[in-house]
């Protein structure tokens, strides 16, 4: 099983805009990825699941996947989480 551990960089944690971007990317990857924070693990493609992790800035999360494409998908998703998505280009500014 492929695994990546990453510290969430976005100022608002995994809520709101960063959560949306992360889940969109997970769906797009086509690989079933699990995201774990502490004891709790949820499918990365589930917006409700990701929100319910209650991840704030600085939380360490672990991404897991298996099978073809797992390594690439995890690399992309881990890189996304390591960026401050709140600071990225605002939608209308």
């Amino acid at each position, binding site marked *: 099983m492929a695994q990546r551990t990453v510290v969430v960089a976005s100022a608002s944690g995994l*809520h709101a805009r960063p959560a949306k971007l992360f889940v969109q990317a997970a769906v797009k990857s086509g690989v079933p990825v699990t995201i774990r924070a502490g004891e709790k693990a949820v499918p990365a*493609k589930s*917006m*409700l699941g990701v929100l319910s992790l209650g991840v*704030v*800035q600085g939380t360490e999360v672990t991404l897991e996947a298996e099978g073809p494409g797992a390594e690439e998908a995890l690399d992309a998703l881990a890189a996304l989480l390591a960026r401050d998505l709140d600071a990225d280009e605002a939608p209308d500014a």
Partner: protein
Amino acid sequence: MPDSGGPWEGAAGRLTGLGVSQGRAAGPMIRLADPPELPAPRTVTDPGAEAATVAKALEAVAAELNRRALAAGGEAAEILEALAMIAEDPVLLEEAERLTGDGADAAHALDAAFARHREALAQLGGYLAERAADLDDLRHRAVAAALGLPMPGLPSPGHPYVLVATDLSPADTAGLGPDVLALVTEHGGPTSHTAILARARGLPAVVACEGVCGLADGTVIGVDGGTGEIAIGLTQRETAEVARTETARRDRLRTSRGPGMTADGHAVKLLLNIGSAADLAPRGAGAGAAEVGAEGLGAVEADAGGTGAEGVGLFRTEFLFLDRRHPPSFEEQVAAYAEVFDRTEHVIVRTLDAGTDKPLPFLGLPREQNPALGVRGLRVDRLLPDVLDTQLDAIAAAARQAGAEPWVMAPMVTTVGEASDFARRARAKGIAQVGVMVEVPAAALRAGRLLQEVDFLSIGTNDLAQYTFAADRQHSGLADLLDPRQPALLELIALCAEAGRRAGKPVGVCGEAAGDPLLAPLLVGLGVTSLSMAPVCVPAVREALAALTLEECRERARAALD
């Protein structure tokens, strides 16, 4: 009010609520559809068909939200897209489908699946608990779709209308279009979501208006967002007259400029409430109240040359601290504060106002039975003195960097001892003008003594009302107690203003009351020296003050205290 038009002679009836956002409008009303009622469970003969209905209902909800996101644009679009993604959540779909397999009909399966997630979010508290209300909204939409009922949400009748609702959720208001003339809700109070949104967009609004949901759709009603009056059954001539005077009023506000003063030249500083430098940026189209379109939220010019405010009366610093595990670094704080100091000469910074009522993860405060009466505002300093010390250091450093002399005040100060301790620490960092907020009656009663320790007072009327009347400011059933016209509240404000006059020190108001053109003259009559408000409120308050002499303001104050 000048140009507010005459009484509505032709009205067949009247209702009265609480006017929370100035302006008049008239037009046919449309009620926001109530959430669908869940019928008794059906006996399911074809679980596959129910599962298909579940999937189709969720798809329809997502499609509708995405459609509205496209129409709304900007920040509202982001919110709506995130909601659409919840409706599209495969986990939610699987769960609802599984429930149909257990014999539930589509509507009940959806209802149960949403309810479970709602519970999970509500238990997490804070920001996520607020999202629980969003889930309710999605649930209502999905259940309506499964039952073949019209989806609740904003109507789009193709003509301007007055939106009437029991209450409005953020999901409802995110998509408000330019065809909405005014908002009227049966619930809600002066600080409710509806009130704040309406003021930000310059939409006339009346809340806590009992009976309004009983009127038939299409009834032509007049709305006075100042007096809270609703006139039922206006004639065409009256409707046209309302539109004419309202357009004239907005035109006048758009061109309003200059420092605040009464008709006889008594100066009253008009200041802005901001959360970051972004609130000072001129964005969008025209200035202030005239814009009611999708861009209305940001359509203000807040710089000294725009709406002509004379500085910042309340710089809330909480935004820097939200949703973070660690407090923002010293450097990060300096940069954020300096950005504001660079843009405006006169700035009053409020130190971190958080606590068990507005929890921040890094504070690590224990849950409390009664957060409004718990460790909040300056009281957090009892547990975590480093947070305030770092913030004061950062404010002082930013001031040196920008060559500015910001005033600094602490929230939720209760005793003279707290005030003197705060003043000593702030002055030790080199901050010259130190003040405290008056939100607790105990502080108002000791205003004179407080002013021996600090240089100015700023009255937060929302919290002062909550604590004076022992009424939760979010409680829609107690809106009358939170009405800033309550004489007991005005008496406490007068006490502070009089203490300021004796000491020769400024006493401002920075609560919602300061931005209300009907209340502003009254506050000035009580002796308040500055008013701090949302940028969009400045022009109407300036015009209201300019229409009266100081003596007339004092007469209003005396009458209100009677």
